[in-house]
């Protein structure tokens, strides 16, 4: 293994720089309005935020509840039966940053990689 201290310092610097750039790229990517909600690895619901009216949706997993709020074309976790409530603190769904409730295996994310529009 390489013994030079400078080498390992450089490795740290590179990792840090790359991760910061990746963060910036993720945060500035535009997104569509299709939202995919998965629980336990399976898609349980998709939303088209452009067409949704304000409402709440509940998901139950092993007796624990997550309540998703759809309001003004946005979506966020209103409440959750989980220890840390990180999902609630994530706030409104933003491009590239999914709302994830790890204990309840629930994810809410924009379908970024798909179409820019749908002809219908």
């Amino acid at each position, binding site marked *: *293994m*390489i*013994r030079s*201290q400078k080498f*390992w*310092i450089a*490795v*740290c610097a590179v*990792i*840090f720089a790359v*991760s*910061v750039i*990746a*963060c910036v790229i*993720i945060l500035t990517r535009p997104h569509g309005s299709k939202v995919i909600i*998965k629980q*336990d*690895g399976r898609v349980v619901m998709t939303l088209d935020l452009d067409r949704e009216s304000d409402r709440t949706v509940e998901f139950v997993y092993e007796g624990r509840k997550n309540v998703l709020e759809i309001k003004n074309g946005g979506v966020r976790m209103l409440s959750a039966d989980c*220890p*840390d409530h*990180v*999902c609630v*603190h*994530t*706030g409104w769904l933003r491009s*590239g*940053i*999914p709302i*994830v409730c*790890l*204990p309840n*295996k629930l*994810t809410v*994310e924009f379908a970024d990689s798909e179409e820019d529009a749908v002809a219908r």
Partner: protein
Amino acid sequence: MNIKRMTVLALLTSLALIIFVVELQMPPIAPIPGMKIGFANIVTVYAVYKFNARECALLLLSRILLGCLLAGNMISLIYSLSGGALCLAGMLLLHKVIDKKHMWVCSILGAVLHNIGQTVAALALMQTAAVLSYFPFLTAVGCVAGLFTGICAQLVVDRIDLSD
């Protein structure tokens, strides 16, 4: 292992445990699951430079198990174990080439490995690639946190000598 060493390890375990539990009471620093400073790692990094591999593993494993018990959160056990194991393994290897003056470097790399371990566990459990998008954020903050905890451990390592 003699009694003195075992006692010292037990002391360090308690110390790490207390720091861990106190940190749990703090509000999350960002809305990303698994993101924290990891102050308890100060003890881990210190141990890597003062004790042998088996002792470090014992220390970390005990702290993680007791910590999850005390926190009442068994789900986080898997994440803590996978992150902690990868982090410790990496740091134990790296401390052979990274000297005491640069412990903070070892700590940063340990933090990054911890995040990798956690993310892999999350991928396996959640079965969705959504968790990958958290990784850059975890890593960026992890580098800064690792730097901080590494510096703390470094400041302490020469001033306090609990090993034989």
